[in-house]
């Protein structure tokens, strides 16, 4: 997903001289070709995220469209104030490309896992927050980002995820609907967890009498409701699955949205990471499994009353 994103930025930069790529001490080979071909649109700055976000705000204020890449936490925690004040307060079109969303960097410990980024970023007015589920969605979102006037935060997955979305999407940020439109069990999810949800749906379709459906949200801000309101109302049980702490993520967003539309929220249950600093290492998959967020855990969650 990251490779697709960076390659797409390079393609956009070739088409549009306003596009610049800005990294913060990224790996040596990052966008080597772009660096050589378009040196004035490529910046590799030091390990200084507060500066980095202010710097791109200055560029954006003068008409450039910066695509900025570093590890998710170093944006959301280290440079939170710069994101809120320099980017969002001024509504500047900067794209924050956040590597290592969720538990991707589980082996590196709690300093590197981005499990509170949705909560932090969706608290910032004007900032649009995205969590694509595959490389196609990532690519299409970035293409659409070129002409959007607002700042964006985009959570990256690990890469190598299966493809579940079409290669050309007129509106890549629209919720994507899967399974039976009148499903009794409905999953709501975002980011790479869609793959676990789709696996869980296959298993439930084989082994359960209940009909199953799912909705994937690649954007957590400006969530369109009408397209899936009927599915929500029909469902008997709704499972919100997110690779995030319980607070401030997809579940919280859905609660507010559904409550605001006078719908019964008591049938929603949450599957999330715990509200804790996780001191186990291992892999992202180990953590999804440990906290019931892999397909096995989600099937179990669907079956229990």
């Amino acid at each position: 997903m990251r490779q697709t994103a960076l390659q797409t930025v390079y393609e956009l930069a070739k088409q549009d001289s306003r596009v610049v790529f800005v990294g913060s001490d990224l790996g040596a080979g990052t966008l080597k070709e772009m660096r050589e071909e378009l040196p004035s649109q490529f910046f590799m700055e030091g390990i200084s995220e507060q500066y980095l976000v202010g710097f791109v705000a200055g560029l954006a204020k003068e008409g450039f469209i910066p695509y900025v890449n570093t590890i998710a936490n170093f944006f959301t925690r280290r440079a939170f104030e710069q994101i809120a004040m320099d980017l969002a307060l001024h509504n500047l079109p900067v794209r924050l490309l956040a590597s290592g969303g969720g538990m991707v960097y589980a082996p590196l410990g709690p300093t590197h896992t981005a499990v509170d980024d949705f909560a932090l970023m969706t608290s910032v007015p004007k900032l649009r927050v995205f969590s694509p589920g595959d490389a196609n969605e990532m690519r299409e979102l970035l293409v659409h980002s070129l002409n959007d006037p607002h700042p964006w935060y985009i959570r990256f997955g690990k890469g190598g995820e299966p493809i579940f979305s079409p290669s050309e999407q007129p509106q890549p940020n629209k919720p994507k609907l899967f399974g039976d439109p009148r499903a009794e069990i409905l999953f709501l999810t975002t980011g790479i967890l869609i793959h676990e949800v789709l696996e869980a749906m296959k298993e439930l379709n084989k082994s359960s009498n209940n009909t199953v459906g799912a909705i994937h949200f690649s954007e957590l801000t400006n969530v369109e409701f009408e397209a899936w309101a009927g599915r929500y109302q029909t469902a008997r049980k709704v499972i919100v699955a997110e690779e995030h702490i319980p607070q401030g993520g997809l579940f919280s967003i859905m609660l507010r949205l559904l409550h605001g539309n006078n719908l019964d929220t008591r049938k929603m249950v949450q599957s999330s990471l715990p509200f804790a600093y996780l001191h186990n290492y291992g892999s992202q998959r180990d953590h999804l499994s440990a906290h019931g967020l892999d397909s096995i855990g989600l099937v179990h969650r669907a079956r229990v009353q």
Partner: protein
Amino acid sequence: MNYLNRHTKALEVGLSTDSVRLRKRLLEITKNAGRGHIGPALSIIEIVDVLYRHVMVNLEDTQSKEWSRRDRFLLSKGHGCLGLYVVLEDLGLLDGMDLSNFCSYESNFGGHPESSTVPVIEFSTGSLGHGMPVAVGLAVAAKLKKESWRVFVVVGDGELNEGSNWEAAAHACKHNLDNLVVIVDYNNMQASGEISDVLEMYPIREKWEAFGFKTIEINGHDRKELKRALITSNSSSSPLCIVAYTVKGKGIKKAENSSVWHHKAKISAEEINALTSDLTI
């Protein structure tokens, strides 16, 4: 000359009629709100006034073609905004907006400057340490667009406690930003007392030079020195840092070098009148 001598000089220098007029207006507009960062605003008045009156270009009309080629100014120490507001008003750059309702609910003018409510203000500031990184972005943008306008940013000496300034300083030199001018308002005071009692920033010139800035030191209340330093084009390929030695509360004996007047609320009209009559010419 050591910095104490430089502060003595800054304390001694007299005020021009422009400087007195601006200070009177500054005090007048704090009457309604009964609050404001008066001390930090008084230390930057000559810096801002010389910049807007004699140095920066193409600022007259936000709707004109020339506006895109204007010099950019950022008040990184946004709490000094009263000093900026009165200069903008004096030069007729506020498009008729009413400064006398400073800090009221419907005012365009808050306790920190906002570009969304006052279009001639380049960038909203308040939380310290934001101006320098943005200024570096603006200066790089000018280079990329091959345009000749300059970027001026005023930072406070206390503000330099924030590490983001030094991140930006290192990058400004990496990018050879000879179109960037950093002006340090060195009034030797921060909110809780003297700089040296809180976090020593001296030797300040050597710090900027070590990063690669061409650095000069001047009296920040002396209009001639300011003009000379700000108008002279930077002949080096390095960014320029002007350490301007100033006095917090400059011009009002009661407020000079006093952290009490860093920020004050519930100021009575009688107090403001007393400060106004205390103005030293």
